[in-house]
């Protein structure tokens, strides 16, 4: 199984930016229902800022690339998602210092490290109706697939499916974290915007990393 190059990682982020741009209004709409209607605009602002730095980010190792992505998200997105997605990439970057390629297994460890960072910052668990509900099952599906010897393509496809199922699982939930929690029972019946943007993160990976 071939490794993931740093240029592939950037392509992943670029694809993610494109998907966010396309889904911006939809994400905002989801956030308007149970939050404050800015999730699409927030993510879009951050990812566009990353594209501006393309020249710098493309010519560096994966650790520096991910750190650059993290710092850009942190300093341009704001809100809960800026801090959390920023932390995700920042933590992931710590395992990739100096590396110019990653094995599928290493990539899995990066994702896990990122997830742990989000959990530490945001203190949410599966079932709280947050991005964790898509991120955790997505990463688990990826890792399980890689562990059982499946291809990158298979692993990422399973990750997308699991994240999607995770996203759907948020719909009936009453939010316990983030802005949606202020709505109490009124938050039930709507999917979580952050879980929705997380599904796109896996989907863009599946389209670019294999």
């Amino acid at each position, binding site marked *: 199984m071939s490794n993931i190059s740093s240029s592939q990682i950037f392509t992943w982020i670029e694809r993610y930016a494109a998907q966010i741009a396309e889904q911006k209004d939809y994400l905002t709409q989801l956030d308007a229902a149970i939050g404050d209607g800015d999730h699409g605009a927030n993510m879009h602002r951050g990812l566009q800022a990353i594209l501006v730095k393309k020249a710098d980010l493309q010519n560096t190792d994966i650790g520096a690339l991910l750190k650059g992505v993290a710092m850009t998200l942190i300093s341009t997105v704001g809100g809960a998602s800026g*801090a959390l997605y920023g932390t995700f990439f920042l933590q992931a970057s710590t395992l990739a210092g100096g590396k110019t390629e990653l094995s599928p297994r290493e990539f899995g460890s990066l994702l896990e490290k990122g997830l742990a960072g989000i959990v530490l*910052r*945001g203190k949410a668990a599966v079932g709280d109706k947050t991005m964790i509900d898509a991120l955790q099952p997505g990463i688990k599906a990826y890792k399980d697939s890689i562990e059982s010897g499946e291809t990158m393509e298979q692993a990422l496809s399973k990750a997308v499916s699991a994240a999607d199922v995770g996203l759907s699982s948020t719909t009936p939930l009453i939010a316990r974290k983030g802005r949606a929690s202020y709505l109490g029972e009124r938050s039930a019946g709507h999917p979580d915007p952050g879980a929705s943007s997380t599904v796109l993160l896996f989907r863009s990976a599946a389209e670019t990393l294999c």
Partner: protein
Amino acid sequence: MKKLINSPENVVLESITGLGAAFSELIKIHTNPNYITRADAPVENKVALVSGGGSGHEPMHGGFVGRGMLDAACPGAVFTSPTPDQMFEATKAVNGGKGVLHIVKNYTGDVLNFEMAADLARAEGIEVEAVVIDDDVAVKDSLWTAGRRGVGTTVLAEKICGAAAEAGHSLKEVAALCQNVNKNGRSMGMALTSCIVPHAGKPTFDLPEDEMEIGIGIHGEPGRTRTKLKSADEITEVLLQPIVEDLPYKSGDEVLLFVNSMGGTPLLELFVVYGKAHEILTRQGIKVTRSLVGPYITSLEMAGASITLLKLDDEMTKLWDAPVLTPALRWGV
């Protein structure tokens, strides 16, 4: 979307530029990252106060920068918490050697971004304390959730703690006072209309002509319940009762009564609500000894109002009365 703006992208920067031009003697605008400091910052040997949050709540927080209140404010995009670099730079700019207090409204985004900024500032050897304001009784508190939102009490905490810092209190003392203000403050708000976030271009929620939202926050988010429109007197009751019962405020208590416009509700109406709230409290033996009435913590052009009660002790009252010289609050000087 009917707004006096040039573009959603530029509204925050253009607005704080205007604020800076109007009050150049009091404040200074810094850009990239955006933050607003007292014109005379850093004030040596004074605890510095930094707050911030999404824009769209004007005059909070930029209008509260100045002598006797905040040393710096960090405006995020509309309804989006600012980023850590803003608070980090602001903290460095106003640190006068006696430490910096971050006054943070309890929203996940604000809390996380302020935490990251505090980490960065501490790494540079600046002493930072953070107090999270969570006074909104519309939200059920629980260990398992994000907890209550920070709303009206924030304004009062910034004024009172700003006066304490001006009086030379230590960082620990100012932080403890801020906690104490938060512990004694409670708020609840309602909306007659939704607001329009510039980027979104349409109302965050649709509210029929005969309905209102009770228990809204300050970000255009829907409230806890939607009910039929009621009279100002009834609405005042609906907001005030859960507040009074929550602390609870009791007969004999001295309180500051803060009746706030969400932006689109004019003073004519706001004073009707104030009058009724004053009457209800007086009837219950709760003494209104200080007042604040007006648009101070708003939600863009949303029509609606919130009520905040703060139980006062002598120290808080004295600090409330102390001189303040900011774009939005000015007295005693």
